[in-house]
């Protein structure tokens, strides 16, 4: 999603997955996802910050596919994301904070071609 690539099913493939349905009064927060500069609102989770602006969270390990979370309550572990400097987070329960540099696959693979 970072480059806005189109999937096999056309331009809609890059559209955001989630829709903000309410007003946000939290401060603007800047972060990056796969190198792309984005902003979100304080109070949002990493999952919401990413999926309101793109179609998925991470590359799936065992097949050419992506994942975007499932239970949204910290149980299924489907929504893992990683940080450029190492470490990982469960996107559905981790707040977005200023300056996070998030990647969709473990950093050791970050340099490999997609």
């Amino acid at each position, binding site marked *: 999603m970072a480059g806005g690539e189109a999937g096999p*099913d056309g331009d809609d493939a890059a559209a955001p997955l*989630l829709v*903000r349905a*309410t007003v946000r009064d939290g401060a603007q927060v800047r972060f990056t996802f796969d190198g792309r500069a984005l902003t979100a609102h304080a109070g949002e989770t990493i999952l919401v910050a990413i999926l309101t602006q793109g179609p998925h969270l991470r590359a799936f390990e065992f097949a050419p596919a992506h994942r975007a979370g499932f239970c949204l309550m910290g149980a299924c572990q489907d929504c893992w994301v990683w940080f450029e400097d190492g470490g990982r987070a469960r996107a559905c329960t981790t707040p977005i904070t200023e300056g996070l540099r998030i990647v969709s696959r473990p950093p050791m693979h970050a340099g490999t071609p997609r």
Partner: protein
Amino acid sequence: MTRVAVVGAGPAGIRAAEALHAAGVAPVLIDEGRQAGGQGYRAPAPGIALDMHALMGSQAGRYEALHAAFADLRGRIDHRPGTLVWAIEDGVLHVATQGRADTLAFDALILATGAMDRVAPVRGWTLPGVFTLGGAQVALKEQGCLVGRRVAFCGSSPLLALAALQYHAMGAQVVGVCDTTSLGEKVRAAPRLAASPGTLARGLSYLARLKRAGVPLLFGVAPETIEGGSRVEALVVRDAAGRRIRLACDAVALGHGLKPETQLAELAGATFDFDPARRLWLPRIDADGRAGPGLYLAGDGAAIGGADAAEASGELAALAALADLGRPVDVRRMAALRRRVRRLRTFQMGLARAFAWPARSVADMGDDVTVCRCENIDAGEIREAARGGLVPGEVNRVKAITRCGMGRCQGRVCGSALQEIVAAEAGVTVEAAGRLRGQAPVKPVMLSIAETDAP
């Protein structure tokens, strides 16, 4: 000083902590969530403006009362939000907060760990845009987000209609509510549901409002596939008459009722029995929630009963713990709570029939359907393992062979389907196929926390 630990700050944990505090035994209340309330009574995150009074509807009063009780309590007790209990041994909790490890000794332990959605796998359910029914509600309540613009609700749960109505009210197009239980089954369950006429009437009113809004309501459906290239494009089902129906959508919410989070109870020494009505393994508790010496279980993590039963069973478990610690307790209050918990859980038995786990269709799912989302294991691989091996038809063996249930969710998501497929393939009962064993850490923790662990 006597230390009572309460794990989980939903309706059961909050009411337990409140009762302990009132008796002069200030508890430690540990919660993995950053904000108290649990799943059903999840509050908006700070910065998200949402009219919860409108969204919670007839439950708004209880939602507001619980959060008010917690606001009053939080400064008076040791509340530890954002804290995972990842192991329990010999009267000690192992916890992780913000990447730091700690231990906490207790004299009595009340587990109020709640529940998550039970989901029957369907072809295509790993696509981005498929969420659990509870997840769809969390997105809305905590984050003020819809999981899509055109959303299909599928499964079998009283929350299906409620969530669909909440999504409709917040501006989503609800393309269909697809219930896998037939109307005939629901009618047969009606006598038990009549035990709580108010709740039954509320459920029927949700359906009537959805119908007035023009939302297609289907009963007795068989989900066939969730279509899409890189994300959800449609939910395809067979209706009760066998007709193929394609609902174009960009998100699907799936839920077949709830399954208790019992991993910590298991580590703390609880015994488990198979519940043939729900086809779930549940911890054995007495009428007050006792599960062993100094161990108490409350709320949906002990027995599915809903939020009202959770509040009552939380207070009851706390009073039982106090009585066992030799403190004076109000025995009339305990008796009243016991009756209330029993009545509400009996009603839930009726719901378990009206919104049934689709055991037959899960056992019969196609070989190509992914069962284990973590490790990418399909039904065919599970069937092959269930036929062979030294102990055919035992879920822990099949887990060892296939890795289904061994991934990062530790079988929380696939476990119910795994047991049905294994039992059917091996020709044994689900009970005989056994119970997936839990183990520490109950959720993944970073190895780096070991460096911070106190000796």
